[in-house]
């Protein structure tokens, strides 16, 4: 999985992000807007809980018999004139895509926003192979022009406001009007002119997919701008890189999932563009279609009884928008293309242990807002706690937790500890790990203990 080099573990990355007041303001405004919209369209449905339960069941069914559905998908895609490639990890997927682009004789590809290709670092791998990848999703374009990283699954440039985007376009977009304003229509028009040239010139497109239907071999992309549809229809060669957990059994399953996704994602009843494609059709759309099915840690997650729930994720990002931690720190602090609560359980499973991944399950207060919002009912707090049990614990913390368990195992030991804590609470600055408490917060100074009071009244 694409590691963002140089990122510190979450607590330190979060501390740096918290110091950026512009970022805090942008995030607060943006997440509050999406939260309000989502709440309104969810409230319209009195069967929302049944829909969530149906969504959970569909994804669980697909994951339970993943091997069967993937082979069915392969057969259907092949039958429809496409070619299926199996990629064990990021390197293999990147090699396959670079090889396909080279075979098409292209040095430039257009891309529809795709989490999977960000996960594997495809753009960087293509660049190393002498191939330029142009992001065509507006927000992804903003991120790419800014030599930046996405900070949200659905709104990758959520950390930027309009004024910042105008400056970026004026600096980085060739031929842009120097008097460009920060009016959204003007900004979108500038991006449109910039992208249109690329769409018409591109011979190869790279996409992801929101769903892959095993029954028919159809792939589905859900988007707002129509740039994705340009990518899917104009170039001669279309390469779709899709995580194996995106497969769903039947077309009918979309009746549930396409009600859950837009409401949870952008707070819309339906998103503007939903594209389906199935293999190739002579005289219409790409002449060549390649589906790269990506594992990259997914089968490892699938083997974990609790961790596997993360594979139900449909990348709506509702959990990010309701997360009080994400709202304060933004997405970059999570050091991964998958930020927020879902990233905190997905990244450690896909990437394996390292200091950043090990810090992510702790990037939550376990408040549970994410679980409430999740359209496929991923119990994120439960998975966080489970993963906390699997990551490496700092030796000092482990010793302290064992000592606490030792104290709590015998009432007399607890009595001594209570006394010590009551005295300690009177200190203005606590030592050791407790130092972080008293930096900003006082402690209470309790009077007569409950037990003294209780004993006195029972035996007057």
């Amino acid at each position, binding site marked *: 999985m694409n590691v963002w080099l140089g990122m510190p573990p979450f607590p330190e990355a979060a501390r740096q992000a918290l110091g950026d007041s512009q970022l805090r303001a942008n995030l607060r405004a943006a997440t509050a807007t999406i939260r309000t919209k989502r709440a309104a369209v969810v409230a319209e449905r009195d069967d929302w809980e049944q829909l969530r339960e149906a969504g959970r069941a569909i994804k669980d069914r697909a994951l339970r018999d993943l091997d069967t559905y993937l082979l069915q998908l392969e057969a259907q895609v092949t039958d429809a004139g496409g070619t299926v490639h199996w990629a064990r990890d990021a390197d293999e997927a990147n090699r396959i895509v670079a090889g396909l682009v080279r075979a098409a004789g292209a040095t430039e590809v257009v891309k529809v926003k795709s989490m999977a290709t960000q996960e594997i670092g495809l753009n960087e791998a293509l660049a190393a192979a002498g191939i330029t990848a142009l992001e065509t999703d507006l927000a992804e374009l903003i991120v790419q022009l800014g030599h930046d990283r996405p900070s949200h699954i659905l709104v990758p440039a959520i950390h930027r406001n309009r004024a910042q985007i105008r400056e970026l376009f004026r600096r980085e977009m060739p031929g842009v009007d120097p008097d460009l304003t920060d009016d959204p229509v003007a900004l979108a028009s500038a991006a449109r002119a910039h992208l249109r040239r690329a769409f018409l010139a591109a011979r190869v497109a790279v996409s992801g997919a929101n769903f892959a239907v095993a029954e028919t071999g159809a792939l589905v992309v859900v988007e707002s701008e129509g740039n994705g549809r340009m990518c899917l229809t104009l170039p001669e060669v279309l390469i779709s890189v899709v995580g194996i957990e995106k497969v769903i059994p039947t077309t009918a399953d979309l009746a549930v999932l396409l009600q859950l996704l837009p409401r949870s994602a952008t707070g819309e009843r339906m998103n503007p563009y939903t594209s389906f494609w199935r293999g190739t059709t002579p005289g219409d759309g790409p002449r060549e279609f390649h589906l790269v099915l990506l594992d990259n840690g997914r089968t490892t997650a699938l083997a974990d009884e609790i961790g596997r729930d993360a594979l139900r994720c449909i990348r709506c990002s509702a959990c990010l928008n309701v997360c009080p931690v994400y709202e304060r720190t933004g997405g970059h602090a999570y050091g991964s293309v998958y930020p927020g609560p879902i990233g905190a359980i997905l990244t450690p499973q896909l990437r394996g242990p390292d200091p950043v991944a090990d810090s992510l399950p702790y990037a939550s207060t376990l408040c549970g807002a994410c679980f409430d919002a999740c359209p496929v009912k991923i119990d994120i707090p439960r998975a966080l706690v489970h993963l906390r049990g*699997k990551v490496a614990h700092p030796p000092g913390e482990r010793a302290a*937790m064992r000592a*606490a*368990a030792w104290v709590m195992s015998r009432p007399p030991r607890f009595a001594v500890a209570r006394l010590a804590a009551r005295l300690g609470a009177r200190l203005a600055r606590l030592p050791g790990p407790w130092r972080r*408490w008293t930096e900003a917060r006082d*402690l209470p100074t*309790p009077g007569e203990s409950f037990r003294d009071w209780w004993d006195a009244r029972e035996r007057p």
Partner: protein
Amino acid sequence: MRVGLFLTCLNDTLFPGAGKAVVQVLERLGHEVVFPPAQTCCGQAHFNTGYRRECVPLARKFAKDFAGLDHVVSPSASCVAMVRENYRELVGESPPVYEFSEFLVDVLGVTDVGAAFPHRVTYHPTCHGLRLLDLGDRPTALLRAVRGLRLVDLPDATHCCGFGGTFALKNADTSVAMGTDKARNVLGTGAEVLAAVDNSCLMHIGGLLSRWRSGTRVLHVAEILAAT
């Protein structure tokens, strides 16, 4: 009714008022309170920080300490949620624990406990009370029945305060940033008292309010219900 008191280690150590208040209210309503003195800690901090193995003996001890009681009441939503949600899987049994407001409203069928507290109060629904126990409007129904009490709405009430157990230390900067927003909202209400059903969250928000010398106090809901 004979009711066991599960005080919780935090209340036992730093918040004696919550336990006293639970005893006073229940006795005022004519019930007998039992306090098993060997009780220590439910193991929530261990469990939630990823120390499941260390938590199991504590859960076993808890089940033993409260054995034979049909109703165990606690002034902590998150500790009750810990026992209710995780004990069956951890140690194969789940003692009959109730959060205090839940016990009063659902088991005893009481909302007016005969309290008087002539102050302006705002209420923060703590996350585990709100989302794990579904306490809903039980605590506020009890507060509304208190004579003289004026309950004012807390903006963004359902947003987490940022305590989060060991999160408050491991991610102290983010924790304080969240708590700061919560405490500002509390001050914005002009309330004299912030009430909640978890002293852990109140320790965090109240710790900030105290450091700022704001003059706004934090009280467990039980302490308000005990006031006459």
